């Protein structure tokens, strides 16, 4: 299978689009007709062929355009990428993980040759070829985390583990659902999760943290998270709220299907070898409502989930203002028929 990389934008004229196969492989996040927070962690050990769960780091038709969008955001705001000095080793660990995984999983796109510490990396889709010395940052154009995350879809946080907690001490964050690395850097697991409603009282974070502290090398886990975004915009950051916040007001009954996107994050968690840190890639997938409803099961289910979602969650996720318009639109695609279990199309 060769991937046709799209020439598309995630800002201004918003030419982003999913191909029909892109829609079919969209990681629809609801396995039932209702939703509430839970410790939804499962082993990240492959998945259905062609799905975004199959490979360790999914590469899809948006790869090249997403990397271009990241570069624009970084030029405007270099603080989207930060690494506290003690996290450089974790950066190398993560660079190795990505290069090894991608060159094994997509040999036609990526090649890694290693001769001891002398490495040779070829990234064909982005036209990059780099020789460097592993663990010697002076041989790369930038730090190891920045280097590899400029070539890897999704945001990334690197968590240091100490004192029985995880600390967000490094990250590359340009496609986030309204949170800020510059604000969260140096915070621990409970601190950066403080704004989330309900989940603390439910014990979700306390259990999840205990589980993550015991995360083992070679046994990564994953979870899905979701929100709603108006227009296919990756950079929905607090820093740029003035650019995308007002766009919420442009949603109306006649354009909601095209303008309103379901935004799904495939989050994976990896224990890193030399640093004992945890890598947390947050991979963002976008799909418009009109594309979602081409899968009848998804149309029915999304209608029910959004209709019945507790208000606190709709407020927190920032789509409460448009919920009536969205639910009205989706109602037309819900005939009340039962839906099958699981997230995949029938």
């Amino acid at each position, binding site marked *: 299978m060769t991937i046709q990389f799209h020439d598309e934008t995630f800002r201004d004229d918003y030419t982003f689009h999913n191909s029909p196969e892109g829609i079919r492989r969209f990681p629809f996040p609801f396995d039932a007709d209702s939703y509430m927070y*839970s*410790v*939804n*962690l*499962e*082993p990240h050990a492959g998945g259905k062929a062609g799905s975004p769960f199959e490979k360790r780091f999914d590469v899809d038709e948006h790869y090249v355009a997403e990397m271009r969008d990241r570069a624009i955001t970084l030029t405007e705001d270099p603080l989207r990428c930060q690494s*506290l*000095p*003690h*996290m450089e*080793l974790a950066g190398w660990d993560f660079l190795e993980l990505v290069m090894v995984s991608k060159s094994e999983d997509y040999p036609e796109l990526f090649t890694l040759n290693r001769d001891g510490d002398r490495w040779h990396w070829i990234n064909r889709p982005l036209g990059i070829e780099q020789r460097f010395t592993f*663990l010697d940052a002076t041989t790369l154009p930038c730090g190891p985390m920045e280097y590899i995350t400029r070539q890897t879809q999704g945001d990334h946080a690197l968590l*240091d*583990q*100490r*004192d029985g907690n995880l600390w967000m001490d490094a990250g590359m964050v340009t496609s986030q659902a309204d949170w800020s690395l510059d604000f969260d850097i140096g915070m621990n697991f409970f601190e950066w999760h403080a704004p989330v409603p309900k989940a603390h009282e439910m014990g979700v974070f*306390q*259990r*999840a943290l*205990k*589980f993550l502290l*015991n995360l*083992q*090398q*070679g*046994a990564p*886990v994953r979870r899905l998270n979701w929100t709603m975004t108006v227009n296919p915009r990756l950079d929905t950051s607090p820093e740029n709220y003035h650019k995308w916040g007002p766009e919420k007001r442009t949603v109306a009954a006649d354009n909601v299907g095209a303008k309103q996107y379901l935004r799904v994050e495939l989050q994976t968690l990896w224990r890193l*070898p*030399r*640093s*004992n840190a945890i890598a947390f890639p947050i991979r963002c997938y976008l799909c418009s409502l009109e594309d979602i409803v081409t899968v009848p099961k998804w149309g029915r289910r999304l209608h029910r989930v959004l209709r019945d979602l507790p208000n606190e969650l709709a407020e927190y996720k920032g789509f409460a203002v448009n919920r009536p318009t969205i639910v009205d639109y989706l109602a037309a695609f819900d005939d009340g028929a039962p839906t099958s279990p699981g997230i995949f199309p029938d």
Partner: protein
Amino acid sequence: MTSRMLRVSAIEALSPLVSRFRFEDPEGALLPLFSGGAHVVVEMPDAGVLRRNAYSLISDPMDGSGYEIAVRREDGGRGGSKFLHTQVAEGDLMRISAPVNLFSLDLRAKKHVMIAGGIGITPFLAQLKQLARLQMPFELHYAARSRAEAAGLALLPASPQVHVHISEEGNRMDLGAILGSQPLGTHVYTCGPEGLIEAVAETGARFGWPRTALHSEVFMAPPPGAPFEVTLATSGKVVTVGAHQSLLEALEAAQVEVQWMCRGGACGRCETGVKSCHGTIEHHDHWLSDDEHARQTKIMPCVSRFKGETLVLDL
């Protein structure tokens, strides 16, 4: 816990009581690298008892060609170390877990001070190699009763930052002097007898050290792995759970459908009702509350086990 079978490729006596064991992949594959302070759990099938002991890795964390541990023979204590010394020979295959680190260096430290008592030197041997590679300032103090007992001597680099204190030679370790003269931002790591760990904590408190700058080694209790049986209420079927299996894996092997997700005791998916329990459920999950654990009416088969006469599950 993920694990693999490795071959014992070398055994070497470091002192009358301490030996070094080296493990390599039987096919010569590279093993996962690790961070200084990590340990592995070594499984020992000892006359019908499955022993699992945790040992710090002492080899270079950046060298995947093998794992090395140093084991002190404790005739009176846990049987595992005696087993290693008396029953294990070069060429044997043993099951070794993936490395886990509960004693990692705080890489923010401006300087690392390591204090070892006796066999407590082991985690520092790997950390020294890591620190050398990262070119970070450090100081190591190694206390032992006598030179003959100081097995670590053979493994320590000769360096002005390495200080050996042999009490028999009147060269006792002076914690006040060590902790009193460190630059701001130093972190201290202690591994050894409980008394030493307490003494460092007390001295640190006296000098006003922040608690988070003082670290000491705690091994995670290795999960017990005795085989046991459960009965399924609906079919009356009896399922045997082997030593290397979780209850969840045994149920799956017996084609009993149980939901699961994390397989680590956190998500709650595999929660299973208990019809009756004559014995003790060994709860290892983070899902059920302390109360629920005490009531013994629920079990998380992905991590928890059972010891006793009968356990009947709502399945």
